[in-house]
């Protein structure tokens, strides 16, 4: 066993223990600092783990010293440590943003449980990424989902409650589908360890049970991933959740679902089964394409800014589904890049909206009028995040769209490349609506003088905005890791 192994467990254990500690200690200040500390400590550990995995190859830790495949194994390879880094980084930034924003949106009596739920969600998301055990993955998925249902319901609009309930229904059905799928795989192989499954499955590929298990897993993960047409829970859940929660979920939880999809299709089942024996590639490409166009079109006509961005998330997940469906190395690279970059842009956008709504309240297109002058920093963050969403160079969004188009052309799907461009144009339309409202519309009449958001809110927002620009200019880190992880994923299969 290698020395940094325990770090992989600590990124799960720390938030998991901090969550009840917040409630037991019962002081808001302690809960805030604990969340902040745990958030940044996890990010630092994820960075260390990524460096170790890059240098020494996959890292494995046997929980309780029970050797895998009998015991539960935590396993980090390139893909895992890369996703873990982006998830923990966004979580840390969101936790830094949280204190002021939560003070404004959540009544004082509910703040402590709110922080514990945030920590639980983070523990679940980190757990999904580090675990090497299929059943363990289901448990972590449910930990993060249950925490998210509670968090979404804390929005001040009552529609948040119903949105949360709908998410609970669809999320539980999705998780149960995943559970059925894992059960079928266990029936055929007698193992739950993912590495072990990957080795034993090829012998039983030609059975109806494995095919059914694959179908259940795909639909279940698709529900969590909000792939079109399984996205119906997402727009309202993101639109009415508190600002912090929208940012955290939009930037991390669907990304983790993309990770799970990649892990199962490319790693556990292997590319040959998923794309040659089963028609997953064409399904993902078709649904991704329809999702990009329809969700972008709906986003253009939204009046609630948060819901507009939520629909845009559905469209962006369509790009990721499409990239996964291409099933070539460039496609997987594009999916991984877009996973990273979309987390950066949606994190920046939702946090910027949080900063704006800190001063303005409910965010409708009309209420943005004149904010370009009154809140220059928050509005500029919104614009740069929006440009990244469209894919304008030199933002991070450009890089992932570029690789996506390359991947589409490489497999001869040039109409898809056109579709990606069309989707980006639609994104330009809805981002332009925000820009027009913020900078060119006449400010609303009224005595309310709005000033810039406090610095503690602006810092995390601008950290993400600058990251959007940085990773648009210096691509060696993201593209390098994504390419190596993609090579590992696509090379593993026959």
């Amino acid at each position: 066993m290698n020395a940094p192994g325990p770090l992989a467990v600590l990124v799960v254990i720390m938030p998991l223990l901090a969550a009840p500690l917040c409630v037991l200690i019962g002081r808001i200040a302690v809960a805030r600092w604990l969340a902040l500390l745990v958030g940044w400590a996890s990010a630092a550990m994820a960075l260390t783990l990524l460096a170790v995995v890059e240098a020494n190859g996959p890292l494995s830790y046997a929980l309780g010293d029970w050797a895998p495949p009998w015991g539960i194994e935590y396993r980090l390879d390139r893909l895992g440590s890369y996703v873990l880094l982006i998830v923990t980084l966004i979580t840390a930034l969101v936790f830094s943003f949280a204190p002021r924003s939560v003070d404004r949106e959540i009544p004082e009596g509910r703040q402590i449980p709110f922080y514990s739920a945030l920590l639980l969600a983070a523990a679940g998301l980190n757990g999904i990424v580090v675990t090497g055990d299929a059943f363990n993955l289901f448990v972590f998925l449910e930990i993060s989902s249950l925490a998210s249902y509670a968090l979404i319901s804390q929005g001040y609009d009552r529609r948040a409650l119903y949105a949360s309930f709908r998410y609970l229904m669809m999320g539980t059905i999705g998780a149960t589908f995943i559970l059925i799928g894992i059960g079928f795989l266990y029936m055929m192989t007698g193992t739950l360890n993912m590495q072990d499954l990957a080795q034993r499955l090829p012998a039983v590929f030609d059975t109806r049970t494995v095919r059914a298990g694959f179908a259940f897993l795909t639909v279940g993960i698709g529900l969590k991933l909000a792939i079109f047409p399984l996205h119906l829970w997402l727009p309202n859940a993101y639109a009415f959740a508190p600002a912090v929660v929208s940012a955290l979920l939009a930037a991390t939880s669907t990304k983790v679902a993309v990770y799970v999809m990649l892990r199962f299709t490319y790693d556990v089942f292997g590319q040959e089964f998923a794309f040659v024996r089963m028609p997953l590639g064409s399904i993902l490409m078709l649904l991704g394409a329809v999702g990009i166009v329809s969700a972008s079109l709906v986003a253009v006509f939204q009046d609630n800014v948060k819901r507009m961005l939520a629909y845009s998330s559905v469209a962006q997940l369509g790009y990721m589904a499409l990239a996964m469906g291409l099933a070539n190395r460039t496609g997987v690279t594009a999916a991984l890049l877009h996973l990273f970059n979309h987390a950066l842009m949606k994190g920046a956008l939702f946090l910027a909206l949080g900063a704006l709504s800190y001063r303005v309240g409910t965010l409708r297109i009309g209420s943005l009028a004149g904010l370009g002058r009154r809140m220059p920093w928050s509005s500029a963050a919104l614009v740069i995040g929006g440009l990244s969403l469209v894919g304008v160079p030199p933002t991070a969004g450009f890089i992932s769209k570029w690789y996506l188009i390359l991947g589409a052309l490489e497999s001869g799907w040039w109409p898809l490349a056109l579709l990606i461009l069309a989707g980006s144009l639609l994104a330009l339309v809805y981002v332009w609506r925000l820009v027009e409202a913020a900078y060119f519309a006449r400010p609303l009449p009224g005595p309310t003088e709005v000033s810039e958001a406090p610095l503690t809110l602006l810092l995390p927002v601008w950290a993400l905005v600058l990251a959007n620009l940085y990773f648009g200019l210096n691509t060696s880190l993201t593209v390098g890791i994504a390419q190596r992880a993609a090579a590992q994923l696509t090379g593993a299969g026959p």
Partner: protein
Amino acid sequence: MNSILGLFNYWIVIFLMMTGFYVVIAQGNLVKKLVGLGLFQASVFLLYISMGKVEGGHAPIIDAFNRVYSNPLPHVLILTAIVVGVATLAVGLALIVRIQDAYGSVEEDDIQAHDNEADSD
């Protein structure tokens, strides 16, 4: 005949699963939806428990007789899944209580009508 009687457990699982799924989709009352969801989850518990059973197998306790044992692992897994199910039910019911307070109804149609009104404002 064997595919009906021999796979009796699994037919029950499918029946329960589809019943639960249908209730989730067709019922407008949120509490009933949650009951359907519970049924749907319970059917999966039965699926796991059935697959762990070995014909003629005993409980996996080592004793003097050299026995065939049933596989205990699926049972343990399902213990975890039951806990998850209970937690889901609790969160769902808590949400329904808050929905009843906020909307004065737990009927999907009423809530959706209120929401559409709020959306079009």
